[in-house]
Every structure is written in C-alpha cells, then in structure tokens.
C-alpha cells in the first residue's frame, strides 16, 4: 500500500469551483494535525518537565530542538546512517547538553541573590541567541535537508487519506517517548522528580540531592526535544532558526496542558495540532494560529493552571 506516485482524486461533489469539505478531506487534515500535534507534544514535554521542576522557563528550548536536528543532519551527512538509527545517540548527546546547561548556567543563575527570575529569563534567552548565532556561524544560513532516509518521500494511502511515513513515524516515536517518560515517572528517580517539583525546599530533608535532580531533569527534557528533532529532520528543513517555528507553539502547549504535567502536554499537543489544522481548512490558512490561541485564552480565563496542571 506504499504509494510514492500520485493516486487519482477521490470523487466528491464540487460546485462552481469552490472546494467542498468532504469527509476524506476532513480526515486527511485531521490526521495531519494530530501527527503534527504529537510532535508539538514531545517538544512541550521537555519544556514542561523543566518548568514544573524548577520554575525555570527555558527560552532556549527551540534551540535545543535545532541542535537535535543539526546533530542528526551532521551525523547523517558524515556516515549515511538513517536518522532512525540516530535516535538513541542524539538523545544521549542532548541529555549531556541539558545537564551541561544546568551545571554551567542555570545552577549559577538560580543561586543569585537578587532578581532571580529576571536572571534566569535572560540566561536562557541569551543562550538561545548564542546557539542560533553559533549554528549560523558553523553551518551557514542555508536550509539543509536529510534527503535520503528510509522513510523520506513515502506515503501510505489509507482509503483516500494519505499518511506520509516520516510524519507517521514521528508520531509513533513521540508516543513511545511519552510512554518512556511516564515509565520514568514511576521509578524512584521519577518520584524524586515529582517530590522536588512539589516542594523543592523540603526535599533536602529526605535525602534527595536537589542539584542532581535538577540536572537530570534538564537532561531528560533536552533528550525529549532531541528525539523530536531527529524525527523532524526526516521531513522538515534544518536551519539555525528552525527552533523558533516550534518554540512558541511549545509554550502554548505547556500552558494549555498544565505546567509540570506530562500527560497534559500530550493532550494539549494533540488538541493544538488538531485545532491548528482544522482552522486552516475551515477558516483561513493565514489565521490558523488564531484557533489555538483562542483556546489558550479560554483556558487561561477559566482554568489558569491548564487542563491537567497541578501547580
């Protein structure tokens, strides 16, 4: 059923040149939106983890995504290895980057005496600008692509609904990653994370090394977004600014789902992906972000802690 060549159009009523929205078209757009939503969710998961843990909004989160994409591109270019094989290595590399960012920057930012909130914001924001500039310096501003991979360019035709394989794989990997994150949350470490999230002052009393938990939390958050980056690299373009395209949506997803809630990030991501796609289809494509921001505003007004937030 893999159909890389075009198939005939499914029959549907058409009057006067206006495209009518058939069930097939609706399903097609909904599927695309949900698959994209799973990617938003995975990007947001890392952000939610970090914020829930230590009240630090990581403004460099989009840039971590970009790093994951460039890491995939560079290794693919050098070795020809399929991106799917690079999931674990890149996740580990980004884990290390996350831990390094915590120890080198965030830990110091959190230990200042005055204006801690501002310092933390500027540190991650400055990191974002640095990473973007470094990427442009290292790779140039041209758009790069992982053009030959196992899945690239392949589409399945499921009864008129075309599902591109790279996006489908990305969705599946995202679900697996969520499963892994939720499994981690049930472990000793996961419960230590939860405890630190609930009361970071008190955990020292029960023998939890807060510093270590924070570092590992950063590592885990960065690894999650790194996995999203690997999958994105199979169908999206890689450039120094690509993180910005996803970062804003990630913040909205986290706020909608609830800060610190992994399950919330998943649900919110799916919801936003779906709403964005359907708004583009049923209203006007250039207004497609209006739908998701409208929902976000509604949630802020009626349930400020987000759908599943506990903070």
């Amino acid at each position, binding site marked *: 059923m893999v*159909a890389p*060549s*075009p*198939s005939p*159009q499914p029959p549907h009523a058409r009057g006067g*040149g206006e*495209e009518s929205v058939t069930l097939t*078209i609706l399903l*097609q*757009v909904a599927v*695309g*939106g949900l698959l*994209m939503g799973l*990617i*938003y969710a995975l990007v947001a998961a890392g952000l939610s983890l970090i914020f829930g843990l230590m009240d630090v909004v990581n403004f460099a989160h989009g840039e971590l995504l970009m790093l994951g994409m460039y890491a995939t591109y560079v290794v693919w270019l050098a070795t020809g290895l399929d991106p799917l094989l690079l999931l674990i290595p890149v996740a580990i590399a980004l884990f290390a980057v996350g831990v390094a960012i915590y120890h080198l920057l965030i830990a110091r930012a959190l230990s200042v005496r005055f204006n801690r909130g501002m310092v933390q914001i500027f540190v991650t924001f400055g990191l974002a600008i640095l990473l*973007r*500039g470094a990427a*442009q310096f290292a790779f*140039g*501003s*041209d*758009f*790069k*692509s992982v*053009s030959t991979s196992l899945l690239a*360019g392949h*589409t399945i*035709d499921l009864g008129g609904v*075309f599902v*591109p394989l790279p*996006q489908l794989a990305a969705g599946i990997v995202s679900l697996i990653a969520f499963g892994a994150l939720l499994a981690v949350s049930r472990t000793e470490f996961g419960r230590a994370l939860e405890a630190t999230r609930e009361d970071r002052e008190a955990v020292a009393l029960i023998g939890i090394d807060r510093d270590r938990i924070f570092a590992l939390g950063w590592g885990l958050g960065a690894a999650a977004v790194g996995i999203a980056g690997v999958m994105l690299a199979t*169908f*999206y*373009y890689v*450039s*120094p*600014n690509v993180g*910005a*395209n*996803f970062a804003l*949506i990630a913040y909205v997803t986290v706020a909608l789902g609830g800060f610190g809630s992994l399950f919330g990030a998943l649900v919110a991501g799916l919801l936003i992906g779906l709403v*964005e*796609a*359907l708004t*583009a*289809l049923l209203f*006007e*494509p*250039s207004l*497609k*972000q209006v739908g998701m921001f409208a929902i976000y505003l509604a949630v802020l007004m009626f349930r400020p802690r987000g759908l599943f937030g506990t903070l």
Partner: protein
Amino acid sequence: MQGVIVAIAAFVLAIGSVPARAADDVVIGALYQMTGPNGQVGNDAKAAMETAADIINGNHNVPMLLGKGGGLSNLGGAKVRVIFADHQGDPQKARAEAERLITQEHVVALIGSYQSATAATVSQVADRYEVPFMVAESSSPSLNQRGLKWFFRTSPHDMMFTQAMFDFYRDIGAKTGRKVRSVVLFHEDTIFGTDSSNAQKQMAEAAGIKVAADIRYRGNSPSLSAEVQQIKAADADVVMPTSYTSDAILLMRGMHDLGYAPKAIMAQSAGFAEQSLIDAVGPLMEGVMSRSAFALDAVKARPAIPAVNALFRARSNKDLNDNTGREITALIVLADAINRAGSTDEEKIRQALIATDVPGDQTIMPWQGIKFDNTGQNIAATPVIQQIKDGKYHTIYPFDVAAEEAVWNVGK
C-alpha cells in the same frame, strides 16, 4: 622668536599632514536579512554585492558597464565600498537600520532589500532623508506607486512578471492547443504575496481563466499540510505559488506527501529561485516553472555572464540566480549613476539616476536595458519564464530567446 618658530613648525606640520587626497571610498549601505529564516538570501546578496564591487574596483575587465574596473573614473578612481545592515526581515528593523546607515555611517545611497515589506519602510526613510534607494529585487508593484522621489528599482515588478506568466499561458496554449483553464493561487501573507496574488487574480480574470482557489498562508509554519490539502482539492491546471524558501520546501514535499502532482507549477520566483530548495526537494522540482529576471543560459546575448558567474561562484559556491543576478546589476547601475554624477551629492546622484539609459547588452540581464520612468521603475526590464530540467533552470519563454523547449503537461 621661539614662539614664532614653534608656530611656523606647527603650521608646516599641519599642512604636511594633510595627505595628497586619494579619492575617498564611495560608501553604499545595503540592507538585507542576514540572520533568521531568509538569512540565506541575505548572505548570498552580500556575496553578490561584494562581487559587483570587486568588478567595479578591481581590474577583471568584464565586457559590461563598469566592467573595466579601476574604481569610479569621474571621482578620481574612488572605490565603491558596501556596508551591510541586517534587517532580519522585519520592516521596523529595516527602518531603524536605514536611519542608522544614513545618519551614522553617512552612506551616499541605500540598496536592498529582498522582502518587499522591508523595502516599503526603507524607501520611506530614504525619501525623508533625501538619499537614493535602489531596490535590487523586491518586486511588489505597489512600491513605486507611492509618489516617492528617491525610489529607484532596476528589477521588474510583479505586475510585469505576472504579465509574462499569462503571456506564456496564452502563447503555449496557442502553440500546443492545450490551454490553461484554471489556476490555484498559493501565497504568503505579507505585501509580496498579497500584491502578487492580486496581480494574478486580475490577469486571470482578464484572460478568462478560473481561479479555483486563493490560499493565503502564514510563512514559517511547522506544517502546511492543511493548506496543501486545499491546493489538491482545487485540482487546477496550474499551481501558482508566491513563497519564500522555507515554505516552498514544505509546499513541494507536502504535495508529494498527499500524492498530488499538479500538471504545472508557475512560481513567482523568490524561494523558488534558491538552490536550497532544489537541493532539499530534488527530483520533485523537475518541470517547475518560474518567472525570472535573470537567465544564466543567455550567454550568447550576454557574454559577460560566465566571467561574472565565476567571480560570484568563488565567493559563494553557487551559480548566479534570479535574486543574485538582480543584486549585482542594481549595484552596478547605482555605481554608474554616482560616476556620471561625478560627485557624492545626493541630488546629483538622483538626477544621474533619472537620466540612466543603459543598453541591455551592457548588463548580464536579458533585458532591453535600464531606463527609469517617473516613478523610479525600470520599464525596459523584460522578464523571462524558466523551467527546471535536470536540476537547473533553463529559459523557455519568450520563445525567441528560449534555450530549451517547454515541457507543458496541462491538458494531457
């Protein structure tokens, strides 16, 4: 007595320290997006401008206007120096950078700026400070319709480009018997996309061609699959995108993902002129058509092309394209006007620009020439239509300058 000797000594030193004045550099300010989503285009523009400056200042002896080199002869061999400002694609930053270039860097003229949205604000600043602004490639037709005195544009605008597209439809339809009956417009939502789609709508109506859908989308989105679905549902003869590079990549891949291969794609250049797109999308680009102001293959009629392309390639590792070809031309025309003015006085430069009359064969462009009308628009700029074959653009229209036969699948 001693005081007099000191005074005389100081006087002699002062006179002696004024050097025999070699001509000062003529400084031109270039505004482009150097960082951000279209940063690639800005960096290519920098390479183009530096190539043009090198041709003017050096001695590469290229058979074109100012190709002999040696600087600006009427200004004592003064060298042209271009300083670059990054507007990041933001019209307000473009405005601020234009002001900075004029008031702090004291440039004698401005050049730029790719995105029409930024050219709009820069041209307003130029008019306010009475400094000439040479638009190299921003193609929105409304830019020269605002009664500005200091605005000049060597590039054709989107009304002229779109006219070439519809003239092509008419002529290829007559030639093959397979006419265009419907088009779908797909455009980004700034002044570039909006003006382009308005021009396309207008000309489609005049030609009796149905506009099956008019899809306005937001640039730099994570996904364009819902928008591409609407293109597929419209099922028109020709898809006409007005897109920057990133969205062009998503468009081409998105159509393939949905199992949709349009009979013809006719692009408003911009992102579709870029090598990144061709590299990213590969064989999907075969047969894609675009309007272009520049024809790399017009070597017979424009013998300067190989030399200029070689100089540009040495700096950028790419061939000249629609955007960079226009940028080189614009700088050379601007420098030539400054030369004819014989001075860096802005009003004299403006008068020299108004009097510009360069024959086409003195440039690398396939145009009739460079001649500005009273709105500052070059009316002798004649665009071509090109089509990708084997990963490169070849000129297919007008038929008498075509290098390749058009591959026309409409109606098949």
